[in-house]
C-alpha cells in the first residue's frame, strides 16, 4: 500500500538510494552473462564470444537511475485522473466516450476514401480490421463465457485452409467458401469443446494451447494435402458479384466505366473485412441479450451457481466455442483470400497470444475496447517496424505492464447487457470481480 499523504522524511532519499543500488545489483546479475557477453559462431564453426561491457554498464546504470527516480517521485505521479479531475471534466469525458464508438465506426467507414492513394495505409487498415474481427470472435469465448482460449489461431487456420483447399480441389468461389469455412471452423470448435468441458480455467488454457499446436503440426506434416511447410499458393481472389478485379473487358473497372486500378481490389477487401467485423460485432451484441448470452455471462461469473440454477453448462460452453470458432473461421477465409498464399507459419502461438492480448488489453467483454486495442497494438507494431527485433520484446513488456497497471483493460467501460433500473456511478475500487478471491 502506498503511504499517501505522509510527509517525506529525510531518510527517504537514503532508502531510495539503497533500493536503487539493490536493483542495480540484481540487474548486473541478470545481464552480466547474457548482455555482457555475446556468443557467435566463429569461422571454424565453434562458438566464440565478444564482450559488451559498455552496454552492460549502460543498462545497469539505467536501472539504477530509473529505480531511484521511481522511488523518489512515483508516489506523486500515481494520483490518477479520477482523483484530480473535477466532476464537470469527468462528465464531459464520459459523454465523449459515448460517442467514441460512433466516431470510430464512421472513421473506419471513410478510411479508404481518405487514404485512397496510400496503399500502405490501406493494407495496414485491412490488417487492423482483421485482428479486430478476430478479437470480437475471441471475445465471445474469453470475454463473455470466461473460457480462456490460448489456441484461437487453430480456428483461424481451419478457416484459411478450408477455403484454400475447397477452392483448390473443388473450384468453388470465395462467397460459397466463406460460410463453409465458418461452419468447418465451428465444427473444429465443437471438437475441441467436447474434451475440455470438464476442465477449469488454467487447464483449459493449456489444452487449447495444445490443440492449436496440434492443428499447426498436422498442417505442417500432412504434406500430401496441405503442402506442408510450402503452404498453398495461388488462392483465388474474391469477385464483386461475379466481376473479377482485373484489367479485362469483364472486369470490375471496365463494367463500371472506371480506369483500371489495383487499388479497387484493396478497397473492396477492406470493405469485406469491415463488413465481417461489423457482423461479428452485431451478432455479439444481439447474442448478449438472448438467454444464451446471459447464460455465458453467468457462467463466467460463477459456474457452480449456474449449474445450481439449471443452466446447462455443457451446451453453453459448446455454443460459445462454436460461435467464437465460426468467426475465427470467417476471418481465416478472408486472410487466405487476401494473402493468396498460406502456410503453417502464419498460424503460430504468437498469433493466438496477440489476439488474446487485444481482447484482454481492450478490456474483456468491451467491443470498443477490442477495436481500440487492435488499432493501438498493430499501429504500434507498424511504428516500430524499423526496430524489428525489439518489437516483440516491447509487445511482451507492454502486455505485462498493462495487465499490472490497468487490469481492466485500456477501455474499461463495458455497457451492461441487462439493466435493472438506472446505471449508478460506482467508483472503480469498490467494484471487484467475483473471481478476485484467491482459490481456497
Amino acid at each position, binding site marked *: 500500500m502506498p503511504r499517501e499523504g505522509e510527509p517525506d522524511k529525510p531518510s527517504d532519499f537514503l532508502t531510495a538510494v539503497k533500493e536503487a543500488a539493490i536493483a542495480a545489483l540484481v540487474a548486473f546479475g541478470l545481464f552480466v552473462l547474457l548482455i555482457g557477453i555475446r556468443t557467435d559462431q566463429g569461422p571454424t564453426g565453434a562458438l566464440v564470444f565478444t564482450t559488451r561491457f559498455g552496454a552492460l554498464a549502460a543498462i545497469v546504470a539505467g536501472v539504477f537511475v530509473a529505480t531511484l527516480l521511481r522511488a523518489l517521485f512515483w508516489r506523486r505521479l500515481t494520483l490518477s485522473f479520477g482523483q484530480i479531475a473535477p466532476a464537470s471534466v469527468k462528465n464531459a469525458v464520459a459523454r465523449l466516450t459515448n460517442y467514441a464508438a460512433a466516431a470510430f465506426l464512421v472513421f473506419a467507414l471513410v478510411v479508404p476514401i481518405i487514404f485512397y492513394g496510400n496503399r500502405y495505409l490501406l493494407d495496414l487498415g485491412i490488417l487492423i480490421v482483421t485482428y479486430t474481427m478476430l478479437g470480437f470472435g475471441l471475445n465471445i469465448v474469453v470475454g463473455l463465457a470466461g473460457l480462456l482460449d490460448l489456441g484461437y489461431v487453430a480456428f483461424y487456420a481451419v478457416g484459411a485452409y478450408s477455403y484454400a483447399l475447397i477452392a483448390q480441389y473443388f473450384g468453388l468461389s470465395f462467397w460459397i467458401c466463406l460460410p463453409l469455412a465458418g461452419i468447418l471452423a465451428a465444427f473444429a470448435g465443437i471438437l475441441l469443446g467436447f474434451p475440455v468441458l470438464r476442465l477449469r480455467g488454467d487447464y483449459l488454457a493449456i*489444452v487449447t494451447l495444445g490443440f492449436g499446436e496440434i492443428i499447426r503440426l498436422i498442417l505442417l506434416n500432412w504434406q500430401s494435402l496441405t503442402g506442408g511447410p510450402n503452404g498453398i499458393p495461388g488462392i483465388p481472389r474474391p469477385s464483386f458479384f461475379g466481376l473479377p478485379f482485373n484489367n479485362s473487358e469483364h472486369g470490375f473497372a471496365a463494367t463500371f466505366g472506371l480506369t483500371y486500378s489495383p487499388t479497387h481490389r484493396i478497397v473492396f477487401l477492406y470493405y469485406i473485412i469491415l463488413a465481417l467485423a461489423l457482423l461479428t460485432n452485431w451478432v455479439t451484441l444481439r447474442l448478449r441479450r438472448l438467454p444464451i448470452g446471459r447464460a455465458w455471462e453467468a457462467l463466467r461469473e460463477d459456474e457452480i451457481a449456474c449449474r445450481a440454477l439449471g443452466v446447462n453448462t455443457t451446451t453453453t460452453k459448446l455454443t460459445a466455442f462454436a460461435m467464437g470458432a465460426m468467426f475465427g473461421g470467417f476471418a481465416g477465409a478472408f486472410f487466405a483470400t487476401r494473402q493468396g498464399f498460406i502456410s503453417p507459419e502464419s498460424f503460430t502461438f504468437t498469433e493466438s497470444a496477440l489476439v488474446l492480448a487485444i481482447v484482454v488489453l481492450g478490456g474483456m467483454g468491451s467491443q470498443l475496447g477490442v477495436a481500440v486495442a487492435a488499432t493501438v497494438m498493430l499501429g504500434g507494431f507498424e511504428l516500430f517496424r524499423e526496430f524489428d527485433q525489439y518489437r516483440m520484446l516491447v509487445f511482451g513488456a507492454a*502486455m505485462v505492464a498493462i495487465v499490472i497497471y490497468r487490469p481492466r483493460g485500456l477501455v474499461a467501460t463495458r455497457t451492461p447487457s441487462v439493466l435493472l433500473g438506472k446505471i449508478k456511478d460506482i467508483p472503480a475500487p469498490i467494484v471487484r470481480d467475483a473471481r478476485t478471491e484467491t482459490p481456497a
Partner: protein
Amino acid sequence: MEYFVQQLINGITLGSIYGLIAIGYTMVYGIVGMINFAHGDIFMVGAFLALIAFLVLVALGISTVPLALFIVLLVSMALTALYGWTVERIAYRPLRHSFRLAPLISAIGMSIVLQNYVQVAQGARVKPLPPLVHGGYTLFEGNDFAVRLSNIQIIIIITTIALMTGFSFLVARTRLGRNMRACEQDLKMAALVGIDVDRTISLTFVIGAALASVAGLMFLLYYGVVDFFIGFLAGVKAFTAAVLGGIGSLPGAMIGGILIGLIETMWSAYFSIEYKDVAAFAILIIVLIFLPTGLLGRPEVEKV
C-alpha cells in the same frame, strides 16, 4: 528387445530433464494456483547461461571438465534463480489479488519478453557446443544391436536423483519446506500464523528456476545445441508431465516427466518422428479427460 531397452534408457534420460522442469510448474501451481507460463523460458535462459559460463571458463583456462561443469552448474543455478525471482517480483507479485486470468496473461507476456530478450542479446541462430562428456558403456549386445549407456546419460540420471532427494528433504524436513506446505494448503491462514507468504512464494520461484537451470544445462550437454525457442515446447511438455503426475504433487511431477519422456521416445522410435509433439499434446488432452487430477493428485473440492 535390445532396441526397446535402448529407447527405455533414452526415454528415462529425456524424462529426467522434463521432470526437473515440471517440478517448477507443480510447486508454483500448488502454492499460488497459477500456471507459470514463463517457466519454460526460464529453462531456456538457464541453458544459455550455462553455455556462456562454460565459454568464459574455457577462456579463463579452466578446462578440466568435471571442475568446469561443477562451476557452470553453480553459476547457472544462481543466475537463473535470480531470473526466477525477478520474474515473480515484476510480473506476478503485483497481481496476487487481481482477477484470475491476470497472472496467466502476465506470464504469457513475460514468456514473450524472455524469448525475445535472449534472441536480441544472443542472436536467433542455434548455438552449438562440442560434446564435453565422452564415452560410455555397452551394457549388452544383441544380434546386431548394442545397448549403450553413455556417461552423459549416467550424469543426467544421477544428478536428477540427487536433486530430487535433496529437494524432497527440503520440502519434508526444513522450515522453508514446512512454510511452503502451509502456503499450499491455505495462503491466508499461513499468513495469519506468521509465515512470510511473499518470501515463501519468492523462494519457491527461486528453487523452481534453479532446478530448471539444471535441466537447461543437461539439455545443453545432451543435445549440444540450444536456441532461444527451446523453452516453449519443453515448457509445454513439462507442464503436461506435471498434469499427468497430478499437479501439486512432487513425486507426481517426476513420474509424469519420465512417462512423457518415455512416450515421446517410444513414439519417435516406433511410429513417426514428425508427430511426436502431437503425441505429447494428445496425451495431455486424454489425461485431462479421464484423469483430471493426474496419477498422484488429490481431487480438488470446489467450495462455494
